[in-house]
């Protein structure tokens, strides 16, 4: 157990090793470690973000689907309503048309009846005149009695 220069030699070697370690060993490995830590942290953050994005996208797509369904339902309802309207309108039109036709027909019938009545009236007047001539045995001046005849015809 002699104490001697070995102690100093060891101290010098120790000093040199520590300085070397401090300059050339510790910093690069520490830098690599920290960089990896950062990379991992970034990666985890990115995956978190991606998961959140996915969730958002899913939510959005579900909402859009819901909206589309709603829209489709609305469209169908509208179409149904419109169809009902169209049917209703065409029914109305048909009814109106029918009414009109009936009225036209009625008017025609009325007209024809009036014509027939007029013709009949004229004939009746003639027949009445002829009858009266036969009764009176004289001719009746149609012109003289036209006023009376017209009155008669109007009464028929």
């Amino acid at each position: 157990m002699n104490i001697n220069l070995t102690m100093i030699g060891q101290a010098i070697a120790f000093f040199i090793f520590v300085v070397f370690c401090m300059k050339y060993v510790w910093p690069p490995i520490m830098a690599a470690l920290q960089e990896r830590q950062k990379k991992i942290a970034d990666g985890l953050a990115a995956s978190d973000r991606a998961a959140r994005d996915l969730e958002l996208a899913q939510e959005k797509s579900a909402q859009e689907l819901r909206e589309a369904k709603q829209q489709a339902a609305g469209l169908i309802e509208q179409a149904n309503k419109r169809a009902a309207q169209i049917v209703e309108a065409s029914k109305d039109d048909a009814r109106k048309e029918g009414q009109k036709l009936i009225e036209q027909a009625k008017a025609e019938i009325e007209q024809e009846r009036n014509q027939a009545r007029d013709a009949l009236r004229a004939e009746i007047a003639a027949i009445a005149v002829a009858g009266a001539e036969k009764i009176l045995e004289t001719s009746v001046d149609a012109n003289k009695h036209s006023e009376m005849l017209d009155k008669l015809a109007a009464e028929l």
Partner: protein
Amino acid sequence: MAGSASEYIQHHLQNLTYGKLPAGYERADGSVMSEAGWTMAHNAREASDMGFWAVHVDSLGWAVALGVLFLFIFRMAAKRATSGQPSGLQNFVEILIEFVDTSVKETFHGRNKVIAPLSLTIFCWVFLMNLMDLVPVDFLPQLFHLMGLEYMKVVPTTDVNVTLGMSLSVFFLIIYYSIKVKGVGGFLGELTLHPFSSDNLFLKILLVPVNFLLEGVSLLAKPISLALRLFGNLYAGELIFILIALLPFWAQWALSVPWAIFHILIITLQAFIFMMLTIVYLSMAHEDSH
């Protein structure tokens, strides 16, 4: 047998010493040094007569070789260090570095670029030096004996010079940082005004020597205990390996294997303790505790 056994042990505990012998010194082989000069010691008496001006070539050589090995491996890993997927070597180095870094961060809260690499160097270097203890005790000395070297102690940490060299370096760092952080006045105040203090100025001055004695002892005890703890553990371990080696060769394994397995724990633990205490002492040096 008793004589040869003690000779065997003595031989194993003798360092290969290169030192300065004075003029007129009678060597082991009977020759006399004509003038003072540096030479290799041939026996324990010559080595101890060299006094302070001697170097334990084996301790220092192995210590430096192992330190270079440590730095070589770590430098290789540092050069190839990537932030991507680490290779096997990088993984190993990173585990050690993270372990040391965590230990430092848990204990030392200031900002100091030196302490973490210092701790890493201490841990790895001391561990490697301790690890030499697990090499069979006769293996390397015999090899070097064949190469013509009389003595070869392969475990540097069983040499108190090596452990003292490291612990005194730590001691100077303690003093350096104490003065750097607290100033000369603060450091001296810490040494002289505590643990006993008084509001009375006269009493305060009277207590200065008492405090200085107490604090001085506790300050000096740090490097001494640091060095002797490591040295004592490894020296005792090595001695037991040497004693086991005195048994007949077919019986040695029954004791040497359990002891070696137990020693794996000891060498790691001692390296860790040396590192941890260094961190604690340096963090104490940084703190204004009083």
